């Protein structure tokens, strides 16, 4: 498995702003090389090559991927956070496995 784990390192579950839980999570693997392929698969993503970041929406949640970590905003709760992180891990691993059949997007 390419990406074994995504672990939450910071979360704001009890904030003053309803529906605005934010989190930072650490990636067990460096993913810079997968970002152009993810950009090709995630139609609404914005890829910034200069800082190696990929920003996209997962329904109402705003996710930004960096080489070794990610940030996520507007998460419903911790259960929602873990569910989305599981989805993201599966997505990254799937794209990595299929990368030879995907035309990478570098813009």
């Amino acid at each position, binding site marked *: 498995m390419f990406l074994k784990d995504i672990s*939450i390192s910071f*979360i704001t579950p009890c904030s003053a702003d309803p529906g605005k839980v934010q989190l930072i999570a650490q990636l067990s693997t460096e993913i810079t090389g997968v970002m152009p392929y993810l950009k090709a698969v995630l139609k609404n993503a914005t890829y910034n090559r200069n800082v190696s970041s990929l920003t996209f929406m997962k329904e109402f949640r705003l996710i930004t991927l960096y080489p070794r970590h990610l940030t996520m905003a507007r998460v419903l709760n911790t*259960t929602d956070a873990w*569910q989305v992180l599981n989805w993201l891990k599966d997505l990254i691993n799937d794209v990595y496995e299929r990368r030879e059949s995907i035309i990478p997007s570098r813009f």
Partner: protein
Amino acid sequence: MGIYLDNAATSYPKPETVYRAVDAFMREIGASSGRGAYRQALLADKVVFSAREALGKLFGINDVSRIVFTSNVTESLNLAIKGLLKAGDHVITSSMEHNAVWRPLKRLENERGIEITVVSCSRDGSLRAGDVARAIRPNTRLVVMTHASNVTGTILPAGEVGAVARERGVAFLIDAAQTAGIYPIDVRALGADLLAFTGHKGLFGPTGTGGLFIREGVELLPLKEGGTGGDSILESQPDHLPDRFEAGTLNVSGIAGLLAGVDFILHEGIGRIRDREKELTGYFLQALERIPGIEVYGPKDPEKQVGVVSLNVPGVMAPDVARVLDQGYGVMARSGLHCAPMAHRTIGTIDRGTVRFGIGYFNTIKEIDSVVQALAEIAGKAGR
């Protein structure tokens, strides 16, 4: 240590991993879940989420945010029944129900004016799905029934009833107190809109754990309000699950044990567990046939029941049988009405109750032999 045959009340012993998981959580993590952002709070969050995932795998639930933790199946049933039914609604239930279903329904009958139809089961506890279909009215809102009787072990046709309910647009609530972890459950195959389960019986978790699956689109009012760790500025419960129904601090140490219990089941395989209980139950039922005079209730067929066997010894009151079993033979069984008077009316034992044996995965043939020998001696003395 005697012979424990009260697994229908709570399972004992638990898998070794359950004891270790609770101990490890309390010593090494110990924090509340869904509140803090420090490392141990995040570990507690992960324990709770992993438990949801394991339960989702066991019950065929993809969106595990639809699994709400409660303190037991009674709370789950109260949440489902009181959260769903409104004045003027009609509800259908079976005549084999536990008071955890019957008492909330009777309270709503008194307070909200709901109407209740009880579909009669046969003397062996079995139910015909067609009888449920015939009882449905235009205002029927809910069908609620046990998956397996806690008195006779009789397995009710949940899949057939679920199909009827789905076809007629009626919500379907299953009380899986006696089947979760013991009998294969897939909420999609059963057509369950709501599945109430307890953690401390077939799922091998500690007491004080349970849950409710709520299918997407089923709207319930919360049973309780309070802190959820998020959306704190709101003056009402948040709309999203599981927070909407999980006010207050979760029993995370219990849930850690529940996770270990469900992991044990997933590792062993639900088919293997079911086969083992069928083997033990069938062996017990066959052996009981050789004791003159013993009255056994239910289907008397391990294919049609879970590991619950109820009986009476002619000439000896059920509490006396249980007392002699305990004090004379070290056998732990339960006598009485088992909080299910309707079921006892159905099988004809409302005036005397039964002695109930709850067989579990860790019981052995040798233990069953000892119980049969004890019952034969009690029956023999009573017959003199």
